[in-house]
């Protein structure tokens, strides 16, 4: 979680804490969104989108930050770029004659709608998926899998165990 004292102060609606947070990370957010913006004039709008997203729903996204998993600068950069890209997709329509638009900007966006992932793809590593596929879909023995992958049978069991822990945790969390 984000530094608890700071986030608590923000969640209490402490405007001073939020202002200090924005002042501290504005330069970082601007640097991150510049890499995504098409026009320099968009940068401030995109920076605002980033801060609005961080404080939305009582700082829900900011509260999800965990310093044990990543540094705050890296996380804010990722959040800023992701938010800026989403905002630009939403605000794409521009009213200008088609002849005035440079040809390069008429190109079809290479970003295609993301294909929906199945749970194993989102939760498990490729190795874990491979082991579970061999074990349950191809009905191979542990020893056969170990031999096919060139790993120890105990490693197969360990990977299986970790994968199951993740899947169980996911379904349990969704059923609660």
């Amino acid at each position, binding site marked *: 979680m984000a530094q608890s004292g700071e986030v608590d102060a923000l969640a209490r*609606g402490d*405007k001073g804490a*939020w*202002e200090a947070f*924005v*002042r501290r*990370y*504005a*330069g*970082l*957010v*601007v*640097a*991150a969104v*510049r*890499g995504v913006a098409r026009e320099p004039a968009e940068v*401030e709008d995109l*920076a*605002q989108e980033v*801060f*609005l997203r961080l*404080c*939305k729903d*009582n700082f*829900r*996204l900011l509260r*999800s930050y*965990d310093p044990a*998993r990543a*540094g705050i*600068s*890296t*996380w804010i*950069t*990722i*959040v800023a*770029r*992701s938010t800026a890209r989403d905002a630009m997709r939403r605000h794409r329509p521009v009213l200008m004659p088609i002849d005035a638009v440079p040809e390069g900007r008429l190109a079809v966006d290479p*970003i295609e709608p993301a*294909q*929906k*992932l*199945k*749970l*194993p793809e*989102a*939760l498990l*590593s*490729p190795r874990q998926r491979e082991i579970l596929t061999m*074990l*349950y879909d191809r009905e191979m023995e542990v*020893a056969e899998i170990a031999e096919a992958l060139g790993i120890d049978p105990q490693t197969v*069991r360990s990977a*299986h165990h970790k994968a*199951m822990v993740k*899947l*169980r945790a*996911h*379904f349990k969390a*969704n059923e609660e």
Partner: protein
Amino acid sequence: MSPSDQQREDLANWSPDRDLWRRSCQTDATADEAAHLLDLAGFAEGRLEPDESDRVAALLAGDPAATDDVAAARAIDGGVHLTPGVLDRIVARACAGLPDEIAARVVAFPAAPRRRILHGLAQWGSLAAAIAMASWLGFAMGSDTSRALSGPISSSETSLLPELFDPGSGFLRDLGEVLRT
């Protein structure tokens, strides 16, 4: 424990796990944006466990935009220096989105129009007046009846009550009997 025992135990234990695996293969992953952003940041810093790192790498293989984000996060160097004017503008715009600011801008629920109050007053007033009128009529009729039955009948009495009631029994007279006689 022999290898065959181990295999039998594996098979016995893994049957529910097989069901779970098959179920997961039929389930669409729900987008947990917050967890995904943390995964990318952790990946950019090389802080993930090997399994997790492999998983995120596999996801990034199909997501060039996220791959760019990771590369940018690795290259970021403390951000840019903003002029005081730009910084103040960004702070002002960010503060405009604060939850308490939003709450302060909520338009108050409109008060009920005065006409509705007058309408309510008129309704309750007319009900009270109707009750008072009914009470007065009831009381007047009751006292009139009582006087007619108990007191001497004066010649100037114009009330029909003495003719309607029998003073002896206090019940209504049988008018048919009067007519017959």
